[in-house]
């Protein structure tokens, strides 16, 4: 009996890895075909990606990028575990980063006060922005997909309105960039100096902590169990005593709070101000990464690293005479394949387990051992 349990577990693990692997292989094949179609040599492209991507300065770049992506992936995954599709991560992190930057620019307190305040402000703003969608869903039944998409646009408009000289922003010396008041040096987040390879953002520590907290809360606490229950079956959850509405609102808020962190590595470690070229669209990247990582804390990390790697290396490919659109193709194909592969593998796994359980029980019955008596 024990053996079978182990086998099922190992199988589950294998199946879990099979899907993303399948997707990445499929993406490689498609990319090869695309590069071939443009009349270039795919082998050269891939070897360039590998050599360039593993260089030490690339490694630091990839880790920095992955820090941001990881937070985005976790923010989306919290919603996914709950069966909520928080498309609004994008708007949530941008508006959160904006207000956090405004606050950071205005603060003159020492760093050990300012930095936590800035981070809390970002999380609070993200949570509030997400709460709008959560409350609408719970009280009026508005689909979170629709409301968060609209809230993304509203966030864009609000930022555009406030990010003007005379409002909450100022014209930079160059005269072309409008940004919030830069953070004082004291409010910079620490970073690891890696010599010529560049600086590794210290926020990666926070990202790791967020990952651990995500794993712990979901897997080891009552709250996490309730959240997963609602995600798996709302009807079973409410019968088991979980207030589904409260849970929807709460998880939306938590998702928003984590979304608020997405802009922080950039703000505290890199740009130190919110300008009109602050990175956007990372919320959508987060959706892809959460899908790729199967909402698993380690999976999301791998997905985030892969995304960083692809971005870094395909940028370089452009200088080698390849088309930069390759990046979009690879990413698109991966996401598409992932969604398909997961569903296929999930169904296959369920069916296979059912058959195995049946087989095991039949084998038990066939064996001339003493059967358990029916009570």
């Amino acid at each position: 009996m024990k053996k079978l349990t182990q086998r099922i577990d190992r199988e589950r693990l294998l199946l879990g890895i099979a899907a993303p692997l399948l997707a990445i292989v499929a993406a490689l094949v498609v990319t090869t075909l695309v590069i071939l179609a443009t009349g270039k040599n795919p082998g050269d492209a891939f070897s360039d990606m590998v050599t360039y991507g593993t260089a030490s300065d690339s490694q630091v770049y990839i880790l920095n990028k992955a820090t941001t992506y990881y937070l985005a992936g976790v923010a989306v995954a919290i919603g996914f575990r709950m069966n909520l599709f928080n498309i609004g991560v994008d708007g949530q992190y941008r508006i959160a980063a904006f207000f956090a930057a405004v606050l950071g620019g205005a603060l003159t307190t020492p760093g050990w006060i300012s930095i936590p305040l800035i981070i809390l402000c970002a999380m609070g703003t993200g949570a509030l922005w997400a709460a709008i969608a959560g409350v609408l869903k719970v009280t009026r039944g508005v689909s979170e997909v629709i409301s968060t998409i609209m809230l993304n646009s509203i966030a864009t408009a609000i930022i555009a309105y406030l990010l003007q000289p005379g409002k909450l922003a100022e014209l930079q010396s160059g005269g072309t960039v409008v940004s919030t008041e830069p953070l004082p040096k004291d409010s910079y987040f620490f970073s690891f100096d890696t010599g010529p390879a560049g600086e590794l953002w210290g926020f990666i520590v926070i990202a790791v902590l967020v990952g651990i907290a995500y794993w712990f809360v979901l897997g080891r606490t009552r709250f996490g169990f309730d959240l997963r229950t609602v995600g798996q079956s709302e009807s079973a959850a409410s019968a088991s005593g979980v207030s589904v509405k409260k849970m929807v609102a709460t998880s939306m808020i938590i998702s928003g709070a984590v979304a608020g962190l997405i802009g922080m590595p950039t703000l505290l470690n890199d740009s130190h101000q919110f300008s009109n070229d602050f990175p956007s669209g990372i919320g959508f990247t987060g959706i892809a990464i959460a899908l790729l990582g199967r909402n698993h804390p380690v999976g999301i990390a791998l997905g985030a690293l892969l995304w960083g790697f692809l971005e870094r290396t395909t940028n370089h490919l452009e200088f080698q005479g390849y088309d930069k659109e390759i990046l979009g193709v690879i990413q698109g194909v991966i996401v598409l394949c992932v969604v398909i592969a997961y569903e296929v593998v999930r169904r296959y796994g369920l069916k296979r387990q059912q058959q195995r359980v049946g087989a095991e029980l039949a084998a038990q019955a066939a064996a001339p051992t003493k059967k358990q008596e029916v009570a």
Partner: protein
Amino acid sequence: MANRDIDITVAAGTVHALCGENGAGKSTLMKILYGMQQPDEGTITVSGERVVFNNPADAIARGIGMVHQHFMLADNLTVLENVVLGAEKLHGIGAAARARIKEISDAYGLNVRPDVLLEQLGVADRQRVEILKVLYRGAKTLILDEPTAVLVPQEVDALFDNLRELKAEGLTVIFISHKLGEVLSVADEITVIRRGTTVGTVDPRNTTSKQLAELMVGSELPTPETEESTVTDVPMLKVSGLHLSQTDLDGVERIILDEIGFTIHKGEVLGIAGVEGNGQSELVEAIVGIRDPDAGSITLDGADISHAPTRRRREAGVGYIPEDRHRHGLLLEAPLWENRILGHVTEKPNSRGRLLDIGGARADTERIIQAYDVRTPGIEVTAASLSGGNQQKLIVGREMSHAPKLLIAAHPTRGVDVGAQAAIWDHIREARREGLAVLLISADLDELIGLSDTLRVMYRGRLVADADPATITPEELGSAMTGAASGHLEHAENDEDGAR
């Protein structure tokens, strides 16, 4: 592979019953016959021709149709629309289809009206629509999966008349059931499956239900009989003036529960009889706290819980065996030990403080599996991979593990084999001796009469009649369930109506 060495021969123009414990492999066999699963070895022969079914469409093409236990019909469509859905090619969706439906309906006495909205139909009517749907697609062999589970005795008789009609027209019926009495009365031949293999085919004319039961489980057929009364005069659950109404999409207010009042004492089983859809589910949901009643009060062991959240009621000692275990009782894709936590996450051994106690929950799952004979290779498998009866045993084990004061058991043995049924009854009786109050809702009238200390009949949201389970017969109860009788039901010795 849940089947091995299955040999079954069904003669054309007969009703062939398939009996067996849950997990015995009946459903798997049916899925193979209907093309939903492929066998690893062995052959299927239809009318002398070897066939391979890769999917249900292949089976339908060979004239094999299936009526599922859970109806697959759309509420917001008419009967006609439901029937033609997916089979538009046959007779279109208009007059020709309507004519064909009428024709089939008349030919087999199904009495189906094509233009009624499905949501207006009762369970028995829906079942007839399902049968018609299959016939419409040209089935010559019908597989019925537990068709009587949801019907009252009168409806079962009507169904059997329909089946005989089908048989008379030369169709073949494969009938899956646990209910031995029914099987004996309607089948021409009975095949018994035990633990994945056929153990014998018998002729119902010279077989008793006892013999059949022995074939199935190797033990005697259990009967749900309560021994000496354990009813005390300490009230455990008191419901009074409970009222629930709902405004439907047309803005019409529908009263679902009307002035419901009853008391269950410690050690008492109160059974509620009624045709499904008369408010039983809603009553249960109001007591569990999933629905909030408009008026009235619910008191558990002296504490008012009328509007308390579900979790507080659960913690206060309400055990709940839900009617639909897949929707309300289990997380199908979660492992068994997570399912053991479900509903009792705040209680020991599942958690300590705000943290889960995974070790404790797993150990206790092992215990439940042993104590309640849940047949599974381990606690890591998903709930979906267990058979229905084993899923139910797990739920019963879970709910009994928290020393409930009140157990709400909605169809506790539905779709459960005789062995597991006896075990579940035993557990309920044992807990009752220790002072458990039980609210029992069941479509199985034998179960209701056998287990209950007090019986009430629910009709259109009201408790219209009460009866003494010691004297009442299923037929008398059945007629009260259709609204034909009210007040206190007395058992009539002659064939007069025993109502009033």
